[in-house]
């Protein structure tokens, strides 16, 4: 496998997981006894990506500075894997002046122009924006690519269709990534999607489509590598559907009563211990490594939380800035 560095993939997944686990804890910490969505140091909706690390890590391993990502409401894993500064991102989630957007955006609106990273809380609407970034990259004569990320629920939104057609028609350097975690809030894929693989839909635009099963980071790495290389070489867009796992609720506070038996096996399907086992078997990872990697991630996360919580809050008057440039 081309340029594959298993340990890097593993470390990045752990780093993301430790981040999400810590945000989970902090989010709920000051919302007890009952969850009050608007209370605490981190208010608002919180969509965490635990279980979906293979998608972000496998894709972003192929990206270089200047490549763009548009992510949806569940953005942390792609943000971190793409190099968005953990401190500034965390400060944004805490609504601080040192945040990426000085507290104006919040967790669904992370903008890091330096890394060409953005996200949006409106389903599938990052897809057209990524097409436009790809248009710009092409017009500017660069070999940069744009990655458009959305969930399997999003693939039934009109913007998905229009974007795939545009990108194929104009031969744009975009890779459309669908994270199929089986659920769109409480609606299972079988109740939202008429067919079983979105890779089939790609054919309707004359575009290659690949579905990666089983949340396997190496399989993602391989498929994403091909799609990204294709885009970079000027050969046009592709679609990559990744069958992944929503380890936790849709957002924090979601009791997941609707999820039924699917919930029983969720921990067994966690991709991180599974990959650790694979690497251990291959001799690439020891128990000590596991602990060291986790500790390093924790230290980075601790520092980010510390950075965020010690940063100043904006004041009411700041709300009036930045409507216009």
């Amino acid at each position, binding site marked *: 496998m081309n340029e594959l560095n298993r340990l890097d993939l593993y470390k990045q997944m752990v780093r993301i997981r430790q981040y999400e686990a810590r945000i989970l804890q902090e989010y709920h910490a000051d919302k007890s006894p*009952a969850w009050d969505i*608007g209370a605490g140091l981190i208010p608002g909706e919180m969509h965490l990506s635990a279980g979906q690390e293979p998608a972000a890590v496998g894709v972003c391993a192929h990206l270089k500075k200047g490549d763009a990502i548009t992510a949806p409401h569940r953005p942390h894993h792609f943000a971190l894997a793409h190099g968005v500064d953990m401190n500034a991102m965390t400060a944004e989630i805490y609504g601080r002046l040192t945040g990426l957007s000085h*507290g104006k955006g919040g967790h*669904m609106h992370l903008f890091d122009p330096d890394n060409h990273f953005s996200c949006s809380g409106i389903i599938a609407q990052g897809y057209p924006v990524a097409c436009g970034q790809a248009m710009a990259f092409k017009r500017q004569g660069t070999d940069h690519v744009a990655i458009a990320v959305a969930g399997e629920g999003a693939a039934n939104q*009109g913007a998905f269709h229009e974007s795939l057609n545009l990108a194929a028609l104009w031969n744009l350097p975009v890779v459309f990534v669908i994270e199929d975690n089986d659920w769109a*809030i409480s*609606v299972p894929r079988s109740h939202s999607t008429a067919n079983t693989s979105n890779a089939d839909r790609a054919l309707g635009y004359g575009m290659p489509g690949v579905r990666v099963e089983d949340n396997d980071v190496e399989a993602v790495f391989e498929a994403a590598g091909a799609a990204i290389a294709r885009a970079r070489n000027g050969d046009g867009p592709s679609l990559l559907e990744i069958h992944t796992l929503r380890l936790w609720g849709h957002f924090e506070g979601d009791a997941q009563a609707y999820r039924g038996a699917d919930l029983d096996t969720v921990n067994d399907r966690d991709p991180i211990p599974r990959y650790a086992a694979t690497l251990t078997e291959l001799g690439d990872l020891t128990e000590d490594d596991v602990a060291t990697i986790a500790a390093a991630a924790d230290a980075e996360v601790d520092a980010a939380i510390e950075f965020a919580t010690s940063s100043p809050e904006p004041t009411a008057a700041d*709300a009036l800035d930045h*409507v216009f440039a």
Partner: protein
Amino acid sequence: MTATETPAAARRITTAKAMSEGIALEMRNDPNVFVMGEDVGAYGGIFGSTTDLFDEFGSERVIDTPISETGFIGAGIGAAVEGMRPVVELMFIDFYGVCMDQITNHMAKIHYESGGNVNVPMVLMSAVGGGYSDAAQHSQCLWGTFAHLPGIKVVVPSNPYDAKGLMISAIRDDNPVLYLFHKGGQGLVWMEKNPRSIAEVPEEEFTVPIGKAAVAREGRDVTIVTLSLSVQHSLDVAEQLASEGINVEVVDLRSLVPLDTETVLASVAKTGRVLVVDEDYRSFGLTGEIAAVISEHDPGMLTKPFRRLAVPDVPIPYARPLEQGVLPTRDKIAAAVRELMA
């Protein structure tokens, strides 16, 4: 005294439950009523608007949809045209932009374009409002946007009783009705609770007329014209200011289309001072419409300049101090009333 003579403890329910109770009653009455939207089934609606409906009516009449708002709102229209009475939920009003064509060019216009020959008896319900840090794409009210466009009735309940009565009226109406409910007024256990979001509501059917404002509190010094969650805040402020000797009248519009201009004008005629409190954006919206209604009637009614308190023309920011800075909070309402009285 026998047990039956003891009045039953007054039944108090949340706004969310009142909505779903209204829907359930009409579903029992009329087999043509069905519910459709994202997570309206087993989940019961993200903000509780379809609580318990799935259990009673099942997946044939309480239908979870794909994330295809143009598709399923359009389907609601088609079903309504063929005699059904769909109640369709758009999860957040902020998502209107992905389906606005169906709403404004179809749901709203078919009756007129058909010269009155085709009816679209459909309820489109949607959650509005902020105050819990859901940021720029999930916190808007936008009722001004819809009230500006002809062909849709727009109702905006502020309490459990109206929520049920307006829901039943909306379902029975032969026109499309946009029913906007404030998340912060639903009485959800997982949001900041205002005691006014839980109230006594009769179990049986009743209607609240569409197009009739309510004087939620009588007063003689100043009129607050408002709606939705801001009614709750304004009533809180009115109670507080009463102790300062300021006597506030609160007009709860309840419906923007049709707009009950009579009730507004009667109140302003009495007080001569008006404050419009609106959680929608300030410019080109509700506050302006009320100014126009008053000043085309008689600008001389106003003994003090017209006052409005709304979201200044900025997207809703995320961080709490920023968001509270732009919302019409109790403090800002009280300050504006005091200034009007100065």
